[in-house]
Structures are given as structure tokens and as C-alpha cells.
């Protein structure tokens, strides 16, 4: 059953998955492209290159999560869940299978990041005190992707009523923020919500880190 769900997921999302896997493979290679000699300034250049490209990794993780979460629900939303309702499985089991299929594809994107990072770092002789972290970076990428994918999967599967409720809450937040600004209340509910979403114990806290393929 899982195989069938995975294949159906793959058919619907293969373009996005291949594209994201290609980007995940290319970014580490691009970040460390060129020839690295034993020049005294190699550490300077390597760390500079790693820092310039570091915001790319969380962005790819987020993009992968968005594409897969949309891919998990979009075909069912489009066909009004007819395919899912014809299957002899309970809704919860079907959703678990869909979720796991998306996770498998996320793993594939993570694996291509690992391959790209390993190739990129293995061809360089690192200067003293500088270290390459291909596996550690991939682990962080995997966890960040998992976290974002889960949240977005849950949001994509909301019933229209719940979705309307969330949109209404968002609109209310904007209105309250504007009103607070006009009344000089020095209170920003949107900033509070964003802080809560990205705070140290929030679901997306894993994104808060130095995403450096090469670091000291």
C-alpha cells in the first residue's frame, strides 16, 4: 500500500523533487567551486564562501517542505478526495501513508545534499583549524525539513472551515497591529507571533543556527 501511495506521490511531485534535489546537489558544489591551493588566505576565502552560501540551505529545506506538503494534498483536493475515498483504508492510515511518502522524498533531497556536500568538501585540503561539516549540515537540513514539512502538511490538510478560521485570525492580527500602531500602544502582535514561531522552543527553532558547510 505504501509503495502505491509513494508512486502516486512521485508521479505528482517528481518535477519539484528532481529540481530541488538538483539544487541541493549543486549548492555545496557551487559554494566551493574553483581551485583551492595552499595559499595562506585559503581559510579566509573558504569561510567567506561558506558564509555567503549558508542562507541557501534553510531556504532549500523550506522550499522542499512547501513543495512536498503541497504535493501531499493537492491531487486529493483537486479530485475532491475521490481516489482516497475509494481506497479500503481509514482516513488516518491514508494520511500517515501520504505523510511518510513525502518524508521519503524529503530524505531523497537530503541525500542529494549529502552527496553534493561530500563531493565539494572531499576535493579540498582544509587549512588548520577549519573543518568541513557535510554530515552535520545534512542532519540539520533533514530535521529542519521534517519540522517545516510536518507543519505545512498539517496546514495543507485543514478543512475549509478551519482554513477560513486561520485566515480570519491572520486578518485580525493585521488589524490589531495596525490599530496598536495608530494608538501608539508600542505593541506588535505580528512580531510576537513570528517570535513565537521562531523562538528557541518553537517548532521552527531548528532553523536558527549557523548553516555553515565549512566552519572553524
Amino acid at each position, binding site marked *: 500500500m505504501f509503495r502505491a501511495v509513494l508512486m502516486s506521490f512521485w508521479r505528482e511531485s517528481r518535477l519539484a523533487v528532481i529540481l530541488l534535489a538538483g539544487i541541493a546537489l549543486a549548492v555545496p558544489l557551487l559554494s566551493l567551486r574553483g581551485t583551492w591551493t595552499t595559499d595562506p*588566505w585559503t581559510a579566509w576565502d573558504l569561510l567567506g564562501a561558506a558564509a555567503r552560501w549558508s542562507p541557501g540551505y534553510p531556504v532549500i529545506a523550506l522550499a522542499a517542505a512547501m513543495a512536498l506538503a503541497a504535493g501531499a494534498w493537492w491531487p486529493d483536493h483537486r479530485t475532491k478526495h475521490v481516489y482516497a475515498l475509494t481506497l479500503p483504508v481509514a482516513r488516518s492510515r491514508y494520511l500517515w501513508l501520504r505523510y511518510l511518502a513525502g518524508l521519503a522524498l524529503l530524505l531523497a533531497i537530503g541525500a542529494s545534499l549529502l552527496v553534493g556536500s561530500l563531493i565539494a568538501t572531499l576535493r579540498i585540503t582544509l587549512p588548520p583549524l577549519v573543518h568541513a561539516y557535510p554530515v*552535520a549540515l545534512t542532519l540539520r537540513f533533514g530535521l529542519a525539513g521534517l519540522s517545516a514539512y510536518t507543519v505545512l502538511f498539517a496546514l495543507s490538510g485543514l478543512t475549509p472551515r478551519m482554513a477560513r478560521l486561520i485566515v480570519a485570525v491572520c486578518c485580525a492580527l493585521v488589524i490589531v497591529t495596525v490599530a496598536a500602531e495608530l494608538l501608539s500602544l508600542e505593541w506588535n502582535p505580528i512580531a510576537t507571533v513570528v517570535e513565537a514561531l521562531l523562538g528557541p522552543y518553537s517548532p521552527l527553532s531548528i532553523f536558527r543556527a*549557523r*548553516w555553515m558547510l565549512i566552519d572553524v
Partner: protein
Amino acid sequence: MSRRFVLTIVVLVLWAVVLSAQDSAAMLRGMETRLDSLRKVAARADSVRFQYFATDTVRVGGLRIATSAALRPVVEAAAAEAWDSIVARFGAAASEGAPFPVMQFGGPETVLPRSLDRRELARGLAGPLHQAIWRRQDSRIDTWLRGGFPTGLLSEEDLVTIGSQLVRIPARSNRACLDGDASACANSLGLRLGADTLAEWYSPDAWPGLAARMDWPVTGRAAWLRDRCADARALDACHAVLTPTIVLQPVGGSGRQLLVTLALEAGGAGAFGRLTADSGATIEHRLSAASGLPVDTLLFRWSHAVSAALPGSPAPSGMDVLLTLAWSTAVLLLAVRGSRWR
């Protein structure tokens, strides 16, 4: 005849060029004058507006803060905290010398945010006083600190920056310094330098790269020397252009500020007075006097603080894994437990 004609034309052209340059200079001067007068008007407007608003002055120690009666309680509490921290750091030096300028806090529309942290406000009020007291000191320490003064504890991010500089910048002593060699740290921090700063900091093979990465704007001969150094690897050109003033320091100003902060903290009461007492002594001796420690011990502490803050691997911690799995499980259970499809 024709020669005289050509000469006349050349003189006329030169005169026109000089005249047009004078015109541009005069226009620039005119614009500067207008800008200055606009600034004066704006400052006067601000002053009148503030005089109308500022109805109260908070005085705590040497701190004088013009504010409104409504803001007085908060400002007074924060000023007391700020003054205590100033006295604890600078001792008698806080009350010596000319009075500090009156600070302004708030404006006619100022409403203090609910989340206002009094400590934050106290730090904000103490900051300008820190700067003012440091500026009163002798030029030797000012020169060594390169105009940036320590205003309190450095953040974790600053320590990471200092550590990264020790690894990134290929100065002779940086690696040994990170390994805890106090003498190497003294060299990196510019404490024990001889006449040839460039050669003591960097080996000649690093000089062309140093010139290529120079962010100091140079023109004319200096630019030519820089290009000769960076492109043709001419070491004499490198030596001529990479003067102590413009050469990249092995550790930036924040590293030096950290060392002073550590010395003042180790020295406790009276540390600042001991640091500034003998303006003729070397920075090394003054730091030792301030901290009450041999300077090598201080440098070892500096090296330890920096190396402990090195960022290391981006691998998620156990807490990260636990949080991610817990949140994901909770969100997923909420998502799949419903029975409605749409």
C-alpha cells in the same frame, strides 16, 4: 603667428578648466553652507520642541537626563542603575573632570513599551558615559583600542567573530594564540610589537593577499604600490604600502576591547584607576596593573574565552532533535486524528 595663436588657445583652455573647477568648488561650498544652515534650523527646531516637552530633569550622580514628568519614574530608576554600573566600572574617574552633557530621553509622543526592560534602558543611558570617560583618557590607550571603547560585556556573537578572525586571518601568531599561547596572543593583539609591524604579524607570502584584501581607500602612489604588491608580488611595494595604520590587524578592535574588559573584571574595584594611572607605561603593564594579574594569565583567559566560543559543527543538538520530534509528533497527531476530508 600660428604658434602664438596655439599658445593663446592652450592658455584659454587651461583658464577655462580652472574657472570651471572654481565654479564647481564655489557651488559645492554654497551647497555646504546651505546644508549647514538647514542643519542649524533643524537643530534649533528640535531644541525648541524639546524645551516645550522636557519639563523635568533627572539627576543621579553625574547623570543628567532631561525628560518629561510622566517618564520620570522609569528614567530615574534606570539612571540609578546606570550610575551604579558606571561607578562600579570606573570608580573615582566617573566623578572627575568636566560634567557630562545633559542627555535627552523621550519625545512628545513617547510611550514606553510594555515590554521595556529597565536594564536595557540603563545600559542605553550608561553607554554615552562609558564613551565619554574613555575619551578623557590618554592617547596611548585610545590609539591601541583604535577608537572603539569597551562598554560592557561582549556578546556571544562578538566572541565568535574574534575566534573566526583568529582562524581566518593568516597572521603568524593567530593559530598558536588560539591554542592558548599567551605570547602569541600578545603579538596578535598588538601588545609586543617591534619596529616592523608587518613582518611581525605576517610572513611575506601572505603580504600580496593582504594587499588584495585591503579595504582602506588608497589613491595615487599608494594605490600603485598596492597593485604592484597584490599582482606582481613585489615585497618591497607590500612593505611600503602596508603600513601599521592600514594593515589588517590579526584580531580586530573587539578582541582588544575584550582584553580590557577581562582586565577590569579581574581587577575589581579600582581597576580602571590602575589602568589609567600611569599613562607613560606600556599597555601590557597597565593591563597587568589593572587586573592584578600577570599579563600572560590575562592573555590565557582571553584565549580560553575566545576558543570556548568557537561555533563548531552545525549538527543539531539533542535538544534540537527532541524539540523537532516532539513538535512534529504533536502537529501530525492533530492533523490525522480528524475524520473529515473537506
